[in-house]
C-alpha cells in the first residue's frame, strides 16, 4: 500500500484500498449459529457428563478417610488456652494431650495437618510482609530486609530480623506428637516425616539459605530471630537440610492460605513397622506443646489426619457441584427440547424445507 505514493490526484486510485480479502472484509469464514440440532445434544451430553464426573468425584472423595481433632480447649488444653490469653505468660511452657480413636484403619499414606480458623493469612498487609529476596538467601537482603517487612524488619538497635515480616513472625509454633496406644499403658510414638511436606519448587528454588550453607550459624550471623520466636532460624531443626530458611515447617507456613480457615500440612506418616499400611485402628493421643495463642482472635486449632486420593482430600464439594450442575443442565435440556418442539417460531427458511 505504501509503495503507491504520489502527489494527490496524480493517481485516481491512490487511496483505493487494496482488493484483498482482508481489506475488503471478505475473508473466508465460518459462521456458526445456535441450532437445535447442535445445542440440544450438547446439553444432554454435557449434563450427563457432569453427573458422571460428579459421581466419580463423590466416590473418590468417599474413599478418603479423615479425622479432625479440635484441641483448642480440649481437656487439659483448656488451661493452656487461658494461659496463652495473656502475652506475659508466653515464657511459661504448657503441654497438653488430646485423645482420639480410629474405628477403622487409615490405609495408605496418612498426612497430619494443623488447622486454624479465623486466621486471616490473606490480609493484605500481612501478605506483603515478607521478603522473598531474603528468603532466597541474598546477602544484601539478609542484612537489609525489605521495607514491606516493617515493623518486623529490624530490632530497635538496627539488627536485621531473619526471616523478616509478619508472616514469619507469626509462625505456628505448637509441637504435635502422635502416639499410638496398643493397650492402656503402652504408647508407641508414631514415626512421622518432617520433610517432603512442601512443594519441590519451594524448597529448592524459592527458599535458599544464605552462604555458607554448611555453616548456618555463620551464615545468619548479624541477624536476629523474629520477635515472637524463641530460637533463631538456624536452630529450627537439628537436621542439616531442614534448617534455616529451607525448614519445611517455615516454608509451609510462608505459603499463605487463601481463606481465613485453613489447614496446613504438618507431618507425613513414616510407613515403617506396624504403620506400614497406614494408621491401624485403635486409640491415639496427640501430645501438644501448646504455644500458639488463638484466643485473642477467637480462632480454633485442630489437628487433622487424612489419607489422600488422586483427586485430593475428603471434600465432596466438587462432586456435589458437578452432580447438581449436571442435573440442572439435563432439566434445562428437557425444557429446551419441549420449547423447541412446541413453541418455537419457525424461521422463514424452515418452512421452505
Amino acid at each position, binding site marked *: 500500500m505504501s509503495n503507491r505514493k504520489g502527489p494527490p490526484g496524480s493517481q485516481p486510485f491512490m487511496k483505493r484500498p487494496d482488493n484483498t480479502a482482508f481489506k475488503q*472484509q471478505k475473508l473466508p469464514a465460518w459462521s456458526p449459529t*445456535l441450532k437445535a440440532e447442535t445445542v440440544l445434544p450438547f446439553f444432554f451430553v454435557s449434563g450427563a457428563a457432569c453427573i458422571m464426573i460428579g459421581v466419580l468425584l463423590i466416590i473418590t472423595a468417599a474413599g478418603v478417610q479423615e479425622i479432625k481433632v479440635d484441641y483448642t480447649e480440649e481437656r487439659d488444653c483448656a488451661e493452656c488456652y487461658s494461659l496463652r490469653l495473656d502475652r506475659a505468660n508466653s515464657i511459661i511452657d504448657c503441654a497438653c494431650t488430646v485423645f482420639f480413636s480410629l474405628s477403622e484403619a487409615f490405609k495408605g499414606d496418612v498426612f497430619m495437618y494443623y488447622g486454624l480458623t479465623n486466621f486471616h493469612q490473606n*490480609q*493484605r498487609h500481612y501478605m506483603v510482609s515478607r521478603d522473598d529476596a531474603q528468603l532466597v538467601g541474598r546477602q544484601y537482603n539478609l542484612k537489609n530486609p525489605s521495607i514491606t517487612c516493617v515493623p518486623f524488619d529490624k530490632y530497635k538497635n538496627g539488627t536485621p530480623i531473619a526471616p523478616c515480616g509478619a508472616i514469619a513472625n507469626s509462625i505456628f509454633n505448637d509441637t504435635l506428637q502422635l502416639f499410638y496406644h496398643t493397650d492402656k499403658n503402652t504408647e508407641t510414638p508414631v514415626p512421622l516425616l518432617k520433610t517432603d511436606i512442601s512443594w519441590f519448587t519451594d524448597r529448592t528454588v*524459592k527458599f535458599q539459605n544464605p552462604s555458607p550453607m554448611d555453616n548456618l550459624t555463620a551464615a545468619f550471623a548479624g541477624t536476629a530471630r523474629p520477635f515472637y520466636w524463641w530460637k533463631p532460624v538456624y536452630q529450627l531443626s537439628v537436621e542439616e537440610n531442614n534448617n534455616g530458611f529451607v525448614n519445611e515447617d517455615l516454608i509451609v507456613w510462608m505459603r499463605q492460605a487463601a481463606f*481465613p480457615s485453613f489447614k496446613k500440612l504438618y507431618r507425613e506418616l513414616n510407613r515403617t513397622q506396624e504403620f506400614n499400611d497406614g494408621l491401624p485402628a485403635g486409640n491415639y493421643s496427640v501430645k501438644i506443646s501448646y504455644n500458639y495463642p488463638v484466643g485473642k482472635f477467637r480462632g480454633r486449632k485442630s489437628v487433622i489426619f487424612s489419607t489422600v486420593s488422586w483427586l485430593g482430600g475428603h471434600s465432596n*464439594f466438587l462432586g456435589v*457441584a458437578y452432580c447438581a450442575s449436571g442435573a440442572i443442565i439435563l432439566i434445562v435440556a428437557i425444557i429446551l427440547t419441549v420449547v423447541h418442539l412446541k413453541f418455537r417460531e419457525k424461521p422463514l427458511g424452515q418452512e421452505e424445507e
Partner: protein
Amino acid sequence: MLCEVCDTLGPQSRVRQRAVPLDFSFNALADRRFVFFDHALLEAVKVGQPATHEFFRLLALCHTVMSEEKSEGELYYKAQSPDEGALVTAARCFGFVFRSRTPHTITLQEMGRPATYQLLSILDFNNIRKRMSVIVRNPEGRIRLYCKGADTLLFERLHPCNQDLMNITTDHLNEYAGDGLRTLLLAYKDLEESEYEAWSERLQRASKAVDCREERLAAVYEEIEQDMMLLGATAIEDKLQEGVPETIAILTLANIKIWVLTGDKQETAVNIGYSCKMLTDDMTEVFFVTGRTVHEVREELRKAREKMMDSTRTLGNGFPYQQEKLDPPKGSSVLEAIPGEYALVINGHSLAHALEADMELEFLETACACKAVICCRVTPLQKAQVVELVKKYKRAVTLAIGDGANDVSMIKTAHIGVGISGQEGIQAVLASDYTFSQFKSLQRLLLVHGRWSYLRMCKFLCYFFYKNFAFTMVHFWFGFFCGFSAQTVYDQYFITLYNIVYTSLPVLAMGIFDQDVPEQRSLEYPKLYEPGQLNLLFNKREFFICIAQGIYTSVVLFFVSYGVFADDVTQLADYQSFAVTVATSLVIVVSVQIALDTGYWTAINHFFIWGSVAMYFAIMFAMHSDGLFNIFPNQFTFVGNAQNTLAQPAVWFTILLSTVVCIVPVVTFRFLKLDLKPQLSDTVRYTQLVRKKQKPQGRRLRIVGRTGSRRTGYAFSHQEGFGELITSGKNMRLSSLALSSFTGRSSASWIDTLRKKRGTESPAAQQVSAGVSPQGAEASQVSGGVPLAAPETGATGPAGGASAPGPASITEECAVKE
C-alpha cells in the same frame, strides 16, 4: 438514444440493443469518449442531407457553451448545463465542431471546413420562455434564427406548414418521454435583413428600458420567434448516477426518511424527484408549498395536513378501533400513521417562513407525515437549518450527503456528513466524514458497513463490560474473606496483562471482522438496518444484561473455587494456587464467551482466540519460572506455582465446572431467544445456511426498469444569464484564466459570479463518474472526472450530464412510531 434527427427524409431507426458504436474517425476533432449507435444518422450527415446538417449546425450554434482549445484539435467544452454540453459534443462528433467564440462570432468547423458565423444576438433562456435562440449571419451573409426549447412552447410558434412533421415529431416525443428522456425541439427561421434591422431596433429600445426591462425583452423576443421551421427533436437521458433510484428505494425500505434539499428550481427538483423514484405517479398527492408570505405558507401546510387527515378518516372508517389502538397518545402520531403516500415540495422562500420558530413544528410534522420531502431553491444556511430542525425535534440520526460547497453547512450540521466527490470541487469532501464518488455507495455505507459497524461496536462494548465485570467483581467477593483489605485475587502480572494481552485481541478481531449476515443479504433485506435505528443492540437494558452476566460470572468463578479451596483439598489451600485457579478459569470462560459472541470466524479470529489462551498459559509459565524468580525474587513470587497448581486434577475439575456453569445459562438464553423470538438477522442467517446447502440463488432484488410518464421540457438544469454574459464579452477576457481554474473553483471566476447570482449551486454539474466502485471498498474514492459520460455498452449511450439527485439531505429517522 439521445439525440435523433427526426425529419421526414431520414429513416428512423432506433438501436436499442447492443450494437456497434459509430466510427467517428472521419472527424479528427471528435470526442473519443462519445459513443453513438445510430448508423443511419451518420449516413445522413455524410450524404449531406441539408436538414440533418442544419440540425447539427443548430446544435453547434445555439448554446452558451465556452470552448477551450489547449492545443490544436484538443477541445474542451465548459457547459453551464450538462445537457448543452452533451448536445454540442454530439454535434462536434457528427462533424459540426464548435471551436471558439468571441462576443460577436462563433467559429465552427463544418464537415472539415471552417466557417465563422456572426453572432447577432442571443435570445437568452429563462424559466418562462423555456427556450433560447441565437440569431446569426452565416458566411454567405444570410441571417437565420436558431431556436431550441421546450416542445409545448415551440409547437405554438411553428409555421403551419410544419404540420406533418409536427405530428411525426409528437409521436417521437411521446416515445422519448415514456423512456424518461428530456426532450428538446429544434427549429430555425430565415430572417430578412430589413426584418432583423427593425427587430434589432426594438430590442435596443427594450433593453434600454428603465422599468419592466425583463418583460419588454421577453415581448420583443416573442415577436421574432414566430413561424419557425421545425428541424427536429433531441432527447437527452437525464442520467442520474447509476443506481440512484435503487439506492433510494432500498434506503426507504430500511426505514430511512429521505429529504432532498436542493438549490435547483422547483421543476428541476421535482423532475429529479421523479427520476430517482422519490416521487411516483401512484402517490396519493404531492403538496406544493410555494407561498411567499407567512400566512400563505401556514395555510398551505394546514391544507396539506387536513388532506392527509381526511384520508385517514375516510380510510379508517372500516376499522376505527384498530386505528385507535395503533395510535399511542401522542400529538404527532396521528400524522405519522396516515395511510397513503404523500410528498411535500417546498420552495426556498416558503421554507424561510416555515423554519420560523412558531411554524417549524407544524412544518416538521407535515413533512414527517410525507413519504418524500423535497425542498428546492434553498440556501446553504436553510439546508443546515432543516437538518438542525430534524435533529432538534425528532431524536433522529441525520445524515447529509452532498457534493457542492453549499452543502458544507448541512454536512457539518448533520450527525453524519457524506461528501460526493466529483465535478463540484472538494469542499464537501473536505467537510464530510465519508466520501465517495457515487451516490449508490450510500447503500453500502449505511446498510452494509454502517450496519456491521453498529453491530460490531455493540458487541464489542457488551463484551468489554462483561469481561471487566467478570474480572473485577471477583475481588469484591474475595473482600468478604480477606477483611476488605484490598488484597487482589490475582497475581499482579495477570492484572496487568488481562486486558491488554489475554482478552484484547479476540474482541478486537470480532470488532473488526464480525458479520452477522453477509453483505448481499443486508442489501437484500434493508429491514436488517432497523435494530440500529431502534437502538436495540446496545441500550440500558443490554448494558445491564452485560453487567449482570459479568457479575454472575464473577460469582461463579469465585465461589466454585472457594468451595474447592476452603474445603481443604490436599495441598490446595494456599492463596497462590487459588489465584492461578481463578485466573485460569476466568481466561477460559471469557474466551469461550467471545467464541460464542463471534459470529464470523475468520482465520484471524481463530488465531486470536486460541492464541490468547495459549498466550495466557505461556506467559503464566514464564512468569512462574525459576529464571525470572532468580533475577527478581520479590517481583516474581509465584515461582513454581503454575506447574504445581495445574498438576492437580482438582484444579482442572474446578476450571471445567466454572466454565460449564458460566456458559450454560448464556447458551440457554441465546437459544431460547433464537427459538422463540428470532430476529430478522437470525432468520436471514438461518436461510443463508439453508441456502448454502441448496444451490446458490440469484439476487432477489431486480433493478427496477425506468418508466415514467412525464414529458420533460427544456433542460431544467439550464440557467439564464449566460447569453448576456457572452454577448457582453465580459467572460471572454477572463475566459482562459477562468476556464483553467474552473475545476479548481477559482473564487474570482465568472462562474462564481454566476453562482452568486443564482444563489445556489449548479444542480447537475455532477457528471457521471467513470469509476466503478471497487469490490465493496469502503468509501472508495473513485473519481473518474470525465466531463462526458463514460462509454458504455448497451443502448444508454453517452448521456448528457448525468446529474446526481442534487445535493440531497437524507434524514434518517428513528422510527418514532414505535
